[in-house]
């Protein structure tokens, strides 16, 4: 019991700090990648390659004046940043980030809490984050902030469904919602779930962009139309907390994609990392593998953000309800049938064979979906029409 408590407290401390440092570096990465994409250099003055820029930004935010609108609901106004900040950090607690670490006192699983209901916990907590946004919009007593909050809630409801539906496919295959078991399944079969569940991954990725309020789905902030949306009225550290919440949501969503579809901390094409006695080297290497996978998704987030323009509100709703939700439902139906057929009629267990068979089905479905989405065939928005 003491061992469990002490190791848990140390893990919580380390994970919290890693996320905070990661988020800080992520803000820098965002600015630098954005600059590179625009043929600029980005902030490179504070420290080598600008590595201390987040520290300077954080310090500035601490020293700034706290403002509160005169007619704001003071209690909720103070509460809102916390309500969005805490769930963003809580969600990471169930994601396994490395293989177990052997210590003098026993083996420590490298996850803060390996909940049996791991994935459901993430769905539950991550949708709590929207309360912070809605409360911020409401308590600011500002039209733009309220509109931002409303949009956030509508968007969250729409995309939560598609997201949940796409993960049902994972659960069908894994037969378990414990994230460590999901990873173990992928390791045993030597096939990451992205192969048999490509389409689910794509739906999950799009919904995750919407869930974390990132472009092209950043309607709650929409600086062009709503100034800054729900955090228009916030300054100094309260504003910073919304920012940290947004970025740690990104980290969690990326880590979740890596866990559910890309084998978590599994090192590809090897078996020694998941079999045999746990060693410190294994822990470090698997941690590196997990970080690399998460980083790829974080980079994709940034890449998408600086490429695509923002959706219009009706386009957002149409994509969520008219495309993603029916797609996810049809997909589950087809996939469930295929899994039933393979398991019951052919009598296979989940393994490489089943994964690649399902992968074939996914490829066909992917081609069909891409063909269907490509009806309009617009390559770029500014093609001059041939003179009639």
């Amino acid at each position: 019991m003491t061992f469990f408590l002490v190791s848990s407290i140390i893990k919580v401390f380390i994970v919290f700090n890693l996320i905070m440092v990661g988020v800080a570096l992520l803000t820098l990465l965002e600015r630098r990648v954005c600059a590179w994409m625009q043929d600029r250099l980005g902030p490179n003055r504070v420290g080598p390659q600008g590595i201390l820029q987040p520290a300077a930004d954080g310090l500035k935010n601490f020293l700034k004046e706290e403002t509160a609108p005169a007619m704001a609901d003071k209690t909720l106004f103070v509460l809102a940043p916390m309500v969005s900040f805490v769930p963003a950090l809580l969600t990471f607690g169930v994601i396994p980030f490395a293989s177990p670490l052997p210590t003098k006192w026993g083996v420590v699983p490298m996850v803060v809490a390996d909940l049996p209901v791991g994935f459901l916990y993430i769905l539950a907590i991550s949708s709590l984050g929207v309360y912070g946004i809605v409360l911020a919009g409401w308590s600011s007593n500002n039209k733009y902030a309220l509109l931002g909050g409303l949009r956030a809630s509508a968007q969250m409801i729409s995309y939560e469904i598609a997201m949940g539906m796409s993960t049902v496919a994972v659960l069908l295959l894994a037969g378990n919602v414990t994230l460590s078991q999901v990873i173990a399944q992928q390791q045993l079969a030597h096939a990451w779930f992205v192969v048999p569940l490509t389409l689910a991954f794509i739906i999950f990725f799009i919904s995750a962009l919407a869930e974390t309020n990132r472009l092209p789905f950043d309607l709650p902030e929409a600086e062009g139309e709503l100034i800054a949306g729900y955090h228009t009225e916030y300054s100094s550290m309260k504003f910073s907390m919304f920012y940290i919440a947004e970025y740690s949501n990104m980290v969690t969503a990326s880590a979740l994609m890596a866990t559910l579809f890309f084998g978590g901390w599994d090192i590809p094409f090897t078996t020694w990392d998941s079999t045999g006695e746990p060693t410190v080297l294994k822990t470090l290497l698997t941690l590196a593998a997990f970080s690399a996978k998460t980083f790829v998704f974080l980079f994709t987030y940034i890449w998408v953000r600086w490429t695509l323009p923002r959706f219009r509100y009706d386009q957002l709703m149409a994509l969520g309800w008219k495309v993603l939700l029916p797609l996810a439902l049809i997909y589950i139906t087809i996939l469930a049938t295929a899994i039933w057929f393979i398991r019951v009629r052919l009598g296979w267990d989940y393994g490489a064979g089943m994964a690649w068979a399902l992968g074939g089905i996914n490829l066909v479905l992917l081609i069909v979906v891409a063909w269907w989405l490509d009806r309009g065939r617009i390559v770029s928005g500014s093609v001059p029409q041939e003179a009639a």
Partner: protein
Amino acid sequence: MAIGVKVMKRPTKQTSYLRATLKGMALTFSHILRPKVTMQYPEEKSSKDWTLSSRWRGTHRMLTDEQGRAKCVACGLCPQICPANCIKLVPGEDEEGHRYPLIYEIDEFRCIFCGYCQEVCPEEAIHVGVHYENSEYSRDRFVYDLERLTAQTHPVSTLWDPSDPKGE
């Protein structure tokens, strides 16, 4: 399309812009690897693509003669033509009858850098300069007196010549 109006091809029904999205992603990624245009200012002040024009009109400079005295003869044309009224000139005369400025001050805050003073000067004494780093710690440092104007060393502006309009 006689006058060359560019009519954009717009989708007539719902499209996903799937191809456009992928194309855009490829484009932004390729830009990461391209050479950057940023000039790192305090270290780099000009590059082969960008230098200050020789006709740039910045803070003033008073040229001096061989004895190190200001060329100004206190004729009063520059305060007369100055549209911002930023030049203060009190003329003086020595025993030999040479006129010189007792006080010559330019308030760089009032100045609009039109360059008329340089254009009107018969002695080619006052010039606007090819210079832009003017920060000071206090406002009163922006009234440049004669001593300061003659001490400046930056290059002076070449004015527009009607016979050579492109500066060739």
